[in-house]
């Protein structure tokens, strides 16, 4: 900047040097940002102000991020203010964000600044497509937005306006309008806001309820309202099995054999395993876990807070409760399941519910259920297998709560007695044992590598093709880990491999890392 700048007498035109109130609404298409915009414009006009709003309802409206912008100020001696059509970074009084990441985006656009901006944002999330398609966990970190809000906003009003609106039978725009009124940034009375809503016809009552709830929430800083209570899932009466001394025995073993820090996860794992098969299977789980813990101890696991045992407790349980037809049929026919769906649908008295499952069993799944020997014999007869597959392999619409279908599922769900002898169990067990062995060997020399190997189990998931893809990624990853196992930084590579495998479904990233490993190993 130049030094020779001089103080210039700029004739002030009284109020005219003021700038208009500026409000930016950042939302996704279809969130009712247009309605909210119209309300605010009407509110200002009702007070004799000149108000201007703009929006871009092009393709962004189709679920993309979009922005509505309003400026308003009183006229001066009959002269209308000249209002801008877009928000200027650093010059926005109120930013209203209808979703939490959109609040983050508004900060990145410079719309939220500590000298003037009141940020009114709903902290609920609507995930973007990029977050949803990741085979692992692609959900963005909300904490980063919270942190940035603390830096950028002059005043922040953050709560779940979506939940509040739904709880009041309305939509988020009404709750946000209430939050704006409650924030008191505009010099208009609460009643004048309500007048605007009342002037609209559709859903005015529900909008007013949501408005008032949000207003009160902002004014009184009342705590977050709890989500509407779901109807209790049907409680099963305590069964005779509850008294099964073997279960108590397992519980006792767990507390005796495992260090305290990993007991909680061990208990969750034990529950899952017993629920999957039976009490004896729970014992098997504890047996294997016990061996792994022994390996952990002798590898000096105490120093690592028994991270190896902890990972084992979690992933061993997952490995033992593989997804087979029996499990799916069992889960679909449980009593709690229907209660859960009824709760989600908010089913009321006098309504009748039916559900249809979309199942596509293949011969592979049937083979998996058969006794291992018989299945292997069948597997060697491609002609017969093909003939059978043509009969089995098709999409089936299963009406869960129609008796014939329910009975079929119920029977399949009850086949757990056959499970231990099935081909699938044989395959899963062999695969599991190999993995456990590899991890146990690794932990002796490289503790972290052992843990990483256990965590690779996360890669196995899905059904049918998805499952085979997951499995092949798992196998590829383990094979690659074997290549680097003797290295000191093997654990780092294992982690890198696993993370890459979870990035995309095709496994391109994983292949990339494997290429790198092969280049030096």
């Amino acid at each position: 900047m130049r030094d020779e700048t001089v103080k210039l007498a700029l004739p002030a035109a009284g109020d005219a040097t003021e700038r208009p109130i500026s409000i930016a609404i950042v939302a996704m298409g279809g969130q009712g940002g247009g309605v909210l915009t119209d309300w605010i414009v009407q509110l200002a006009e009702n007070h004799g102000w000149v108000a201007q709003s703009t929006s871009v309802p092009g393709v962004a409206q189709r679920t993309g991020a979009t922005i509505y912008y309003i400026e308003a100020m009183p006229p001066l001696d009959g002269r209308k203010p000249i209002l801008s059509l877009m928000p200027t970074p650093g010059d926005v009084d109120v930013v209203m964000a209808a979703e939490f990441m959109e609040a983050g985006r508004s900060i990145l656009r410079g719309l939220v600044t500590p000298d003037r901006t009141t940020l009114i944002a709903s902290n609920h999330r609507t995930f973007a497509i990029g977050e949803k398609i990741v085979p692992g966990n692609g959900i963005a970190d909300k904490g980063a937005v919270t942190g940035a809000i603390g830096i950028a906003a002059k005043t922040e009003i953050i709560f779940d306006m979506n939940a509040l609106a739904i709880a009041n039978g309305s939509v988020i725009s009404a709750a946000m309008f209430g939050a704006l009124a409650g924030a008191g940034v505009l010099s208009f009375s609460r009643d004048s806001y309500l007048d605007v809503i009342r002037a609209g016809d559709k859903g005015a009552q529900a909008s007013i309820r949501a408005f008032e709830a949000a207003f009160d929430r902002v004014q009184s800083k009342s705590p977050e309202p709890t989500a509407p209570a779901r109807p209790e899932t049907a409680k099963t009466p305590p069964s005779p099995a509850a008294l099964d001394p073997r279960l108590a025995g397992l519980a006792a073993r767990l507390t005796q054999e495992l260090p305290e820090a990993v007991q909680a996860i061990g208990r969750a794992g034990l529950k899952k395993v017993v629920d999957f098969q039976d009490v004896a299977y729970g014992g098997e789980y504890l047996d294997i876990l016990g061996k792994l813990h022994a390996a952990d101890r002798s590898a000096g696991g105490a120093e690592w807070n028994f991270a190896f045992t902890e990972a084992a407790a979690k992933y061993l349980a997952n490995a033992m409760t593989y997804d087979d037809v029996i499990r799916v049929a069992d889960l679909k026919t449980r009593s709690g399941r229907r209660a859960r769906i009824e709760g989600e649908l908010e089913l009321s008295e006098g309504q009748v519910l039916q559900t249809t499952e979309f199942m596509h069993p293949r011969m592979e799944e049937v083979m998996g259920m058969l006794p291992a020997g018989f299945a292997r014999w069948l597997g060697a007869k491609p002609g017969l297998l093909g003939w059978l597959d043509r009969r089995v392999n098709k999409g089936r619409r299963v009406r869960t709560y129609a008796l014939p279908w329910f009975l079929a599922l119920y029977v399949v769900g009850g086949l757990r007695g056959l499970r231990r002898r099935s081909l699938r169990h044989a395959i899963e067990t062999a695969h599991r044992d190999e993995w456990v062995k590899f991890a146990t060997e690794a932990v002796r020399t490289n503790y972290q590598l052992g843990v990483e190997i256990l965590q690779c189990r996360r890669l196995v998931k899905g059904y049918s093709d998805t499952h085979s893809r997951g499995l092949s990624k798992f196998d590829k990853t383990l094979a690659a880990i074997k290549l680097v196992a003797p290295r000191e930084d093997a654990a780092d590579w294992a982690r890198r491999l696993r993370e890459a495998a979870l990035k995309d479904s095709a496994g391109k990233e994983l292949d990339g890392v494997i290429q790198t490993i092969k280049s030096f190993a």
Partner: protein
Amino acid sequence: MAERSFAREVEDLRLGDGDTFRGEGILAITKALLQSGVAYVGGYQGSPISHLMDVLADAKDVLDDLGVVFQSSANEAAAAAMLSASVMYPLRGAVAWKSTVGTNVASDALANLASGGVTGGTMIIVGEDYGEGSSIMQERTHAFAMKSQIWLLDPRPDHECIVNLIEKGFELSEVSNTPVMLEVRVRACHMHGSFACKDNVKPAHTIKDALNNPKRDVGRIVLPPAAYEHEQEKIRTRMPAAINFVRDNRLNEWMGPKQGKVGIIMQGGMYNNVIRALQYLGLSDAYGNTQIPLYVMNVTYPVIDTEVAEFCLDKDAVLIVEEGQPEYLEQAINTVLRRRDIQARVHGKDVLPMGGDYTAQVLLGGVREFLEKTDPRLLGNRPPAPDATAVLSHPEVEKLKQVVPARPPGLCTGCPERPIFAAMKLVESELGEHHVSADIGCHLFSILPPFNIGATTMGFGLGPASTSAFNVKADKRSIAVMGDGGFWHNGLTSGIGNAVFNKHDGVFVIVDNYYTSATGGQDILSSRAVSKRRNTNNSIVQAVKGIGGKWVRQIDRTYDVGRMRDTLKEALTTKEQGPKVIVASSECMLNKQRRVKPQISKAIKDGVRTVKERFGVDEDVCTGDHACIRLSGCPSLSVKQLDDPLRDDPVAAIDNSCVGCGNCGEVAEAAVLCPSFYRADVIHNPTGWDRFKSKVAMAVIGWLQRRRDRRRPALEALA
């Protein structure tokens, strides 16, 4: 039936003297047309002027009362050609479209119209889709105005000014026998504002009068030697007449002090943001009391040389504020000044960016730099201008950049186009990737995640035409996608007809969702609704067969993913010669919901047995791989984190915006994904038989469930 109804807003079109209009810019424009006494209107929808077409469609009664003819046009060329009604007859007419794309399509007709000239006032309203939020290539309409010699109006974004310019524009058109373009930018189209109304004016001469008294004059037809005459007329008569009119009627505006060392020349559309920039610099108040002389060009073509010269004469320097490139105005003004040897220095794109939105922030920088170069004293005590850089460079905010996910537009919940692309994905996994030509329309979202299908888009209805080079024998065939809107816009001839003629072996998918959905759901020839005013229900399949297509498959329910996949596979592998045309039809879900939702609510309220469908996910069955989402992208299909220490990855979840279209189930079945999806059918007002059936079944089921629950190890014992 358009996505949005303007039934209430249309009433505003009846306002008269003494009333104040309050509403959207596009409605103000429509009102101005009626105040100008137009005899006919037409156009082609597309953001940002879709609403104008919708308003006109909804305003039948108002238009009928005034005797105004409204025609929806097949495309922009058809709309432009319609203006020929004003060539021989003193009829005022107006058409509207999205620019520059629409102007590209219309340019042949426009050039002919401008050459022969017009008798009645003609106005082309172009929605300039430039800058943030635009859906098209970034170009300027200005070039078209100059090359064909059509006057270009670029009014200040203010309803009063826009309405006045439209009224004056018709006069200008008549005085100079030249069509006029009115350029309104996206935000101005959707801007809420107000103006003082006048009464509507019935056209003095009507279309009927013209039909009953036909006239012809070969001199107006573009054919040598008349065409050479036209060029001379343009130069000798029409241009001078226009310049005189613009000057005499003061269509361009002078603001601020008469004298000044420096001044700013701008397109009218830039005015509001320039004032805001000046305000930040302490050089204007909020009401436009500027301390720097401004010359606001509400008419950007022709440039009024004498006005420019007068404005620049006593100045050291001027700044040209002109959005987009090339800098036509800056060049023109330089010529004016050089010819007259006026010494004012011309600044413009040297201090302002060559391309992109001229926001207040951008202009603030440009104007400041201009003043620093030319008259720094004006910057005075340099009041602090708004500045977000401190916040933006804070590490916490920097970190946010890596976190906030992109949110590209996508197909709506329940969109019938989703299963088409899911099927294409399934075929891709079997037969490998293919060259896919995309087209304009909602289906263009296929190029984005999760589908990532489509290599090029060359223009509305040109998807099929853009595969025409790929007409050779190879291991794979080309695939072209086009919507029903594009099909009727020109795709039938430019794409399908051409493919038939050239014996193109490729696959052509026509996505028929009963409307031009991307532009807001306007009816077209093949719309299924019965319309009293239009002839709808004309079959795309018949049209394709009529033009010579032999291999044509109609899929009536796009949600049948398995059938969609098999049909595509057949099309890609069949030995049959010539184009393989698949017409995939299902109603646009946005429109369907708008139509059906009130009916369902009413039926439920009236006690009629109604089944409502919704999809759900069994979270304990879902393994969190998200393969289903990679084949869908439905907004209602999302993920949620379970409160389960044994699970790392979030599971799929369907929220209550689900409309039960069926895609999830079909995809899970066709792709053999996983059995976690279910469809929940809720019967409202069930019959006695429904209730009886359910009761009996549930009694047995309940007994069986209790039986198994008793045998299950009670896990509470482990808690």
